[in-house]
């Protein structure tokens, strides 16, 4: 046709935007994303903290030499130091050990200072001697073998590989992960439920138009795609607002945690990938919405001719 082109704006056949059901969906998804972003950031932070600890702890262990109970103080010290030397000998002959250094008197004094105060002479106290052992990077040390060799050399040595108390923390973190998983399941259920409900309502609302589309030869997929697209956009918007509220909350909790003394929590840092995961939550919500809407429509339309 040689006529001048006329601008014709295309309207959506199924005007799914607007209305209270859309707002309901956005709010539900917003709340879900908010809850999950906060939970996820907490779990990721604790996880990264544990990973840091684990790494530094796996590379080291402590050997403790119990003090001799000899009545003569000088002899007792000499005996303890002799045991220490024997333990050092064993440790330095193990391939996986990079370095084995006994803590100096000064270091020991510093360690007990918080409990016993200043002006304590370590010589007068029956305290254990400590050997700090660094293990070569990547080497796997056989702890049982080490303990056996040490016991052969001296009965006063005992190995502490820090695993015990770390394991308790790991169990705690695992509990938190389980919590996060339950929140995730809840979030997915809320999102899918909200989408299912709004899609059903919307299908009822647009029944007449859908019937016409069918009569014109539209496949169920054609209708389902329009619903899926719209739901994805709504969930994305809702999720974005949820994240917008979630981020300041995460920063707020983080700054409160920083104030806790001891620096334990301050080791909790979110990595680049952790942030990536948190920031992509609205996209996840959008995907869930899209898939749920698509299959809800397909299922519901099956019942129509």
């Amino acid at each position, binding site marked *: 046709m040689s*006529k001048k082109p006329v601008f*014709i704006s295309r*309207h959506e*056949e199924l*005007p799914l935007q607007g209305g209270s059901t859309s707002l309901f969906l956005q709010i539900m998804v917003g709340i879900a994303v908010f809850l999950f972003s906060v939970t996820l950031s907490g779990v990721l932070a604790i996880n990264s903290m544990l990973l840091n600890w684990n790494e530094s702890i796996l590379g080291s262990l402590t050997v403790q030499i119990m003090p001799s109970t000899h009545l003569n103080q000088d002899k007792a010290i000499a005996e303890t130091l002799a045991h220490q030397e024997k333990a050092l000998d064993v440790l330095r002959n193990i391939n996986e050990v990079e370095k084995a250094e006994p803590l100096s008197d000064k270091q020991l004094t510093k360690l007990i200072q918080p409990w016993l105060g200043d002006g304590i002479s370590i010589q007068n106290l029956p305290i254990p001697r400590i050997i700090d052992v660094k293990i070569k990077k990547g080497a796997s040390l056989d702890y049982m073998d080490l303990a056996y060799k040490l016991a052969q050399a001296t009965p006063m040595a005992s190995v502490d590989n820090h695993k015990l108390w770390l394991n308790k923390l790991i169990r705690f973190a695992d509990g938190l992960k389980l919590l996060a998983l339950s929140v995730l399941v809840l979030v997915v259920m809320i999102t899918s439920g909200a989408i299912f409900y709004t899609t059903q309502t919307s299908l009822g609302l647009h029944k007449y138009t859908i019937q016409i589309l069918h*009569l014109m*030869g539209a496949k169920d997929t054609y209708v389902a795609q329009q619903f899926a697209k719209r739901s994805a956009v709504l969930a994305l918007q809702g999720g974005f607002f949820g994240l917008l509220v979630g981020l300041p909350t995460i920063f707020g909790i983080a700054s409160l945690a920083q104030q806790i003394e001891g620096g334990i929590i301050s080791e909790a840092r979110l990595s680049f990938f952790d942030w990536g995961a948190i920031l992509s939550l609205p996209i996840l919500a959008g995907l869930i919405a899209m898939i749920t809407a698509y299959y809800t429509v397909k299922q519901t339309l099956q019942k129509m*001719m």
Partner: protein
Amino acid sequence: MINANSNINTKYPAIIEMQNVGIRYDQGPEILSDIRLSLRKGSFHFLTGKSGAGKTSLLSMMYLAQKPSRGTVSVFGHNVNFANRDALAMLRRKIGVVFQDFRLIDHLSAFDNVALPLRVCGMDEREIRKRVMELLQWVELDKSIQATPATLSGGEKQRVAIARAVINRPDLLLADEPTGNVDNDIAPKLMKLFVELNRLGTTVVIATHSEKLIHDFAYPRLHLQNHGLKIYGPNDYTNMRGNLV
């Protein structure tokens, strides 16, 4: 008999075939009983009968909005009872329907309403624009392309509905009182469109009350009476009947 000539069967295959078809709603009595019907490619029929005789029910089986309560309906050689949803959708794309109540989508413009059958097929927008503009011009609605049905008169709505029914150059055109609301001067023009489509190979069924229409165009008549169907006129009529030897 039609079947006597196998030449007809290959050249003019049955577009719609009904055998022992009955239709009832819920547990009510049968509205239509024992309908036997075979409409060949290129045929043109009027469908008549009093109000409530079942014209709309018969048509709705033809445009695949309804399955028969009993018997078999085949459209384009496919048994409707066994066709899945996607197959039915593909069959509907070959059927153009003009509804008595138009069934236009209220929030869409005349242009978008007419474009609907092309869009559901996934046709290119430029091609859609070209075809729709051409047709809207032909039905004298080129000034109302952006108008929504609410702002159109009854006759204009009917012309939009007709344009939508023929935009996809259907193999089967079903129309329920298509000239009921249009002005006297445009009715012959619309009938000319149907006749022209029929000449090009489209099978046409028009439900009407208009004795004038039936008289002016001497096409065979499917008449519904007492839940049954009677055929008046040459039942082996096709648009190219003259070419048959």
